[in-house]
């Protein structure tokens, strides 16, 4: 656990000094304005919650994909992947801790989103069920870490990983019902969406803002946890398998 904590701290130190890690926070205000302007133009105050949840989840997801992916890719370019691979610690644990640090920082998009909404459109957000909202945010953040590990591992497999990350992002956000709730999407899409933990998270978050009592909240939270754990397990397994593979092929380094 000490190694994991050290990796977490190290990534925080690294992130505060690296502008790339702040991009998700910087890009949040324009997105908030964009979504709120759509709501405003079409005079749909009932969609304000959607307009606020969307940039939060989108940017946490982006942090996971882009900066999480950069962890392993940068280590490889810096010759640090080899040194990590030669160390006694499982590299998956290190990546998980470092992605978790990135996701923790990405939670800053929440106050930035709310502040932007207040300052630009004078939105007054009233949360009906704080417990469910914070619980959902917590398990969603952990599930996003799992996804980040999966995408991080893929950067070693393919030089086109960045393109893949970009391409993979939107289908997941769409299936996750991040802006448009899943029930508004075509019926045949919905079963696929239910396999993406974001769809459960976004529904729960919307409900926790608008409803005092959220129906089946614990069961729905459990689904996010299970899907998140599956992502976690898949990510750790992938890193182990991929490192074993590149130890065989010699592709562990870039030179």
């Amino acid at each position: 656990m000490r190694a994991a904590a050290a990796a977490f701290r190290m990534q925080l130190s690294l992130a505060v000094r690296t502008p790339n890690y702040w991009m998700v926070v910087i890009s949040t205000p324009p997105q908030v304005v964009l979504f709120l302007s759509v709501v405003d133009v079409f005079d749909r105050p009932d969609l304000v919650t959607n307009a606020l949840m969307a940039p939060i989840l989108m940017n946490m997801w982006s942090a996971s994909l882009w900066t999480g992916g950069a962890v392993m890719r940068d280590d490889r370019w810096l010759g640090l992947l080899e040194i990590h691979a030669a160390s006694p610690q499982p590299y998956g644990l290190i990546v998980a801790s470092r992605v978790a640090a990135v996701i923790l920082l990405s939670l800053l998009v929440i106050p930035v989103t709310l502040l932007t909404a207040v300052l630009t459109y004078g939105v007054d957000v009233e949360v009906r069920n704080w417990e469910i909202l914070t619980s959902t945010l917590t398990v969603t953040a952990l599930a996003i870490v799992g996804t980040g590990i999966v995408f991080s591992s893929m950067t070693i497999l393919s030089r086109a990983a960045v393109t893949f990350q970009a391409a993979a992002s939107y289908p997941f956000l769409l299936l996750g019902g991040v802006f448009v709730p899943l029930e508004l999407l075509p019926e045949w899409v919905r079963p696929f969406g239910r396999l993406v933990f974001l769809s459960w998270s976004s529904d729960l978050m919307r409900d926790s803002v608008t409803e005092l009592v959220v129906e089946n909240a614990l069961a729905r939270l459990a689904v996010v946890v299970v899907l998140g754990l599956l992502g976690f397990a898949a990510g750790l397994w992938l890193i182990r398998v991929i490192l074993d593979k590149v130890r065989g092929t010699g592709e562990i380094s870039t030179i």
Partner: protein
Amino acid sequence: MGAVETFDLRREFRTSGLRRGETVVALQDVSLDVEEGEIHGLLGPNGAGKTTLIKILSTVLLPTSGRAEIFGYDVTESTKTVRKLFGLVFGGDRGLYTRLTARQNLDYWAALYEVPTQQAKETVERLIHLVGLDGRAEDRVETFSRGMRQRLHLARGLVADPPVLFLDEPTVGLDPVASLDFRGMVTGLRDEGKTIFIATHDMAEAEAICDRVTLIDHGEILATESPRTLGAWISAFEWVEVLGLDIETRDILEAVPGVASVADQPGGWVRFQPEREDASAEILQLALNHGFASVRTGYPSLEEVYLRTMGDRGMEV
């Protein structure tokens, strides 16, 4: 039992690109023995297989066949145990988090090697002092010179106090003063009982610090020699160049016993390549006596030594 041993170690790679699918042999049945407490050099030109061997020994690359052991532990079977027995140090800019400070880098690796917290603090402090970074420990690595980075690399490799150190071209790109400084630290570590396996293409470096040197080329071990033998090879082939020679003096110098060849070089220089140890001194003296003060000497490249020694004597060196 040696500290590091390899037995018929072989590594093949599959090529990509235009020659996709071809097999390239990076190491051919390499067997060597590094004794505990020695500095053992692995000397060879670029592409000889030095880095491949270090990667296999440091568990980041699997051998195609054969085996390697560190203190009797097989690097492919007892990976976890083996990883606690060595430190890995690269040369160049790679291997450090440059946006972090020197101390943050060392703290991080100390935690990854599970050095107890209090001991880690003391070790990091001692290593910072050892590598002469006392005044720069809180500075970001990106502000460091090449030499300082290399010293920090060494400190990182030592953070878990491993009995074996693998150094892969550690002085590449360093200026002569920094190289000398680094070599001094390496010999100091040998005196503390560390076993050091250093890959280099620098003959002078190998001669200066190694107890034994293994020569490798095209993935094959050619010989394991003492630096004394290596030194004799180097000095035997020290060339002399003289600027603006007239024909008469050129003939005189060419007639010096032991001169193997004479060749014109760009800029009006003439190179005399001896094949005997004392010939270069005589050429130098004669050139000066005849009023040619613009002279320079140099050592042959590793490839030239291979060509002239091993090329003639094959595996019998």
